């Protein structure tokens, strides 16, 4: 399985293990959308550190995961975007909004805890 998914409290952590084909990206998207409702999750963390390439399709899929999860009451944070991948995304003009990004898992957990407690909406 190219993505390892573990649950931690109200959060789900999905760690991408290797480069994904488009179909695997779509499967991940559908899988996460389903679990958010089933498990009554408050947050999703997607670790993309193993991805050497984030192209327009992956960016769009990550965005759609975040939008779908938001509609079902959960926030999504992407962690581990490699520096080279970040440079490529900027040059490509790819945008992950409204997705939040964090450097690592610890930061992602802080971000999710913060929005779960209603902070951070207006930068507070």
């Amino acid at each position, binding site marked *: 399985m190219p993505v390892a998914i573990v649950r931690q409290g109200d959060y789900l952590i999905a760690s991408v293990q290797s*480069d*994904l*084909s*488009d*179909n695997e990206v779509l499967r991940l998207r559908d899988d996460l959308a389903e679990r958010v409702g089933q498990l009554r999750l408050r947050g999703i963390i997607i670790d993309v550190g193993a991805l*050497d*390439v*984030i*192209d*327009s*399709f992956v960016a*769009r899929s990550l965005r759609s995961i975040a939008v779908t999860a938001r509609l079902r009451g959960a926030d999504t944070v992407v962690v581990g975007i*490699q*520096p*080279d*991948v970040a*440079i*490529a995304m900027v*040059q*490509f*003009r*790819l945008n992950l909004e409204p997705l939040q990004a964090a450097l690592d898992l610890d930061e992602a957990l802080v971000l999710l805890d913060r929005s779960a407690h209603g902070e951070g909406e207006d930068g507070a």
Partner: protein
Amino acid sequence: MGHEVHIPITSDADMVPARAQGRALALSLGFSTTDATLIATAISEIARNILVHVGRGQMVMRPVHEGNRRGLVVIARDDGPGIRDVEAALEHGHASRGGLGLGLPGARRLMDEFHVASELHRGTTVTMTKWRIRDELERLREQRRDRG
């Protein structure tokens, strides 16, 4: 030095090795990991373009030389319906089937040279190149090697 790589693009599963081989060839040609990532991302977009619009095609990647420049060229061919308005397809945000039209313009921004030749009912060929400037040291070493 790297060699020529041929990759048939016939299904979504072909994109993973296409990206990996593009990156490996770029690194073997002395490109930085950043440039190798830009090249792999452009390859990914162009391969998907073939799959979404035509369904099958062929990709060739090889080293190119021009004066002091060393580079990598990617040639992607398909026998599809062709693109009626290449300029529009290259414009950012041009709406296309199954995507947001980011593929071609995005790939163009990642590469140094980008050319689309398309003939209606005949197919499309995308040729894109990334250049690497050799530094003084590399030039000296090469001269020495050539002298024997």
